[in-house]
């Protein structure tokens, strides 16, 4: 299911929360919407899910226009909100059954989907326990389960790992990866860059309601002219000039046996570089590849760090 967002705009009083936002997510694509708190991510996905009416712009989910045909468009969307929006006084199965019924599932089909979802999220053993007795991580998983129970074409996750322990975060990311592998399109908002890098094919970076960059991680890094770095430790000194002349190497600085080499693509250039070092009779004791990340991209674009970007 393709999502096409065109020139979306929404204000709250004088404050423009989302300004002229356009993006496209193709069938089966995993798209990350990144930005600090208050960047406009939640406002954007609230409009995409039909929860908030835009001041201007157009949202198409497949061939459905969200603003004019919200009910039908919602059939294709699964929404996982940032907050844990589950009934604590209902069991996991009861929570899933309720939202399954709201999405039109009934009888044996509903039973099967509830069982599958509980299994997928590792909650089958706690199906009949009240959600309020779950750990935070388990509640997060149930929160996700409600969003994907009806097998949506597009799953929208709004910072689904906020406030969970590393183990639960891994479990959640694993589940999301499995869903993506099954061909479900993903729109994933986060301010954790490592999650976006792990899950998403492409990312859009939102700041103060404006999309300031979009592309794959490598494209964004390349666009900014940022290079990969190789931190090397050798058994004997080498000639820096020879290293600099190796293919793809932009710079090399050595201090005795330790040095750092800047290259355009570390993973591709590493073999040739190691050969050039070996040609000088030196052996590599250790090598560390440092790739510029999205955090660096965001810092470069806004001059601010992502996680303390402020609201």
């Amino acid at each position, binding site marked *: 299911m393709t999502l096409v967002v065109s020139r979306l705009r929404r204000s709250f009083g004088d404050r423009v929360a989302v300004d002229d936002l356009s993006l496209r997510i193709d069938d089966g694509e995993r798209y990350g919407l990144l930005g600090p708190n208050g960047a406009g991510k939640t406002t954007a996905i609230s409009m995409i*899910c*039909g*929860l908030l*009416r835009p001041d201007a712009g157009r949202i198409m989910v497949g061939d459905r226009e969200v603003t004019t045909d919200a*009910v*039908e468009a*919602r*059939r294709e*969307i699964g*929404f996982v*909100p940032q*907050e*844990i*929006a*589950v*009934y*604590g*006084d*209902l069991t996991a199965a*009861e929570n899933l059954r*309720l*939202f399954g*019924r*709201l*999405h*039109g599932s009934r009888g044996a089909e509903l039973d099967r989907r509830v069982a599958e979802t509980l299994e997928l999220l590792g909650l089958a053993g706690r199906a009949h326990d009240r959600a309020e007795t779950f750990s935070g991580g388990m509640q997060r998983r149930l929160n996700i389960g*409600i969003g994907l129970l009806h097998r949506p074409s597009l799953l929208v996750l709004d910072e689904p790992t906020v406030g969970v322990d590393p183990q639960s975060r891994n479990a959640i990311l694993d589940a999301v990866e499995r869903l993506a592998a099954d061909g479900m399109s993903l729109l994933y908002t986060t301010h954790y860059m490592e999650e976006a890098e792990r899950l998403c094919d492409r990312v859009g970076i939102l700041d103060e309601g404006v999309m300031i960059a979009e592309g794959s991680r490598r494209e964004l890094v390349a666009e900014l002219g940022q290079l990969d770095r190789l931190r090397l430790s050798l058994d004997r000194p080498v000639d820096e000039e020879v290293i600099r002349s190796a293919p793809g190497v932009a710079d090399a600085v050595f201090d005795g046996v330790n040095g750092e080499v800047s290259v355009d693509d570390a993973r591709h250039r590493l073999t040739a570089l190691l050969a050039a070092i070996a040609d000088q009779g030196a052996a590599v004791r250790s090598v560390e590849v440092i790739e510029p990340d999205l955090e660096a991209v965001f810092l470069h674009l806004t001059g601010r760090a992502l996680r303390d970007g402020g609201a």
Partner: protein
Amino acid sequence: MIAISATILRRYFRDRSNLFFVFVLPFVIILLVGVSAGSSLETEIGVVGARTPTGQIVLEELGSDDLRFFDGDAAISDATRAVGTGRLAGAIVFPERLADPIEYVRLPGFGSDGAARLDDAVELVNARAGLRAVARDLGREAEAADVAAAGVTMPMVRTERIGDDLWGGLDDSASAALTQTVLFTFLAGLTASVLLVEDRASGISRRHLTAPVPTWRIVAGEIVGRLLITTAQAALIVVATAVFFDVDWGDPFATGAVVVLFAAVAASCSVLLGSMVRRPESATAIGVTAALVLAALGGAMAPIEIFPPTMQVIARFTPHFWAIDALTVTMAGGGIGDVAAELGVLLAVTAALLGTAAVVRRRLLTR
């Protein structure tokens, strides 16, 4: 819509404190009222005309415990005033002539123990020898002749009530059942508003909107869920008091119409309160306070007949007044035509509140 309504019911009745309020407390109160039926705090009975022939005969059987005697020209008005101000449970007025009935004065709904005690004494007089024989035994040939001439075989007790009948003259169990139905139906509705506040705070209300269901159906589900709670509460008290306390609710259609309309008023107020308050604790505090205050103002805690005139006017601005008024009529044997005016008022209140609740709720969800 049904899924949301069913979930509201399930959650409400899963809470133990709600179970206590719905299934236990109303019946404890009705039971306590029933047990204390006819009693009043004041047990002393006033006696006027103790030296009359009837007085002498009957007082011999009645004994002198808890009696206060009144003499003089103003004896009747003094005794009546003492009853009216609650200083006496009731007052017996013995006539000068044996053939005339004995008067027993009491406030409606209070002091019936004294009347029963007086009835017993009169019966004993009659059982002993008959009034004429007793008069002869006492050497009162003239009175005995009067009794014979009047054809009176036993003294009569006529009970006079001061003021209007309380709760339409219903007995204590019936009036308790009626008032507790109204009080607890409204209370159940307002306490159910907490769930709505919790849903909003947790983001569940917003999440409902991501389902492919029109917003009006979600709002309808929320209202119907609360209507089921309030109707269940009312129906439970009506049926249980009919079965276990032998309360006659009268015409089931008329009673049903009043109960359902009042339950709808309570459900609408529940959704309104749940939409306007942000914290669950606030909803509980405001809900319980409002339910008790409206019940008191509307006559569900004390009979409206004893309210000062201004409060009686204020009572008419509460739905409780109209529900109690209508149910009093149906319990006294009235049909749906007899409560048409009350049903009309309740219908208008329901329509206004329901419409407001739906609009407010929808606006809150979609803004």
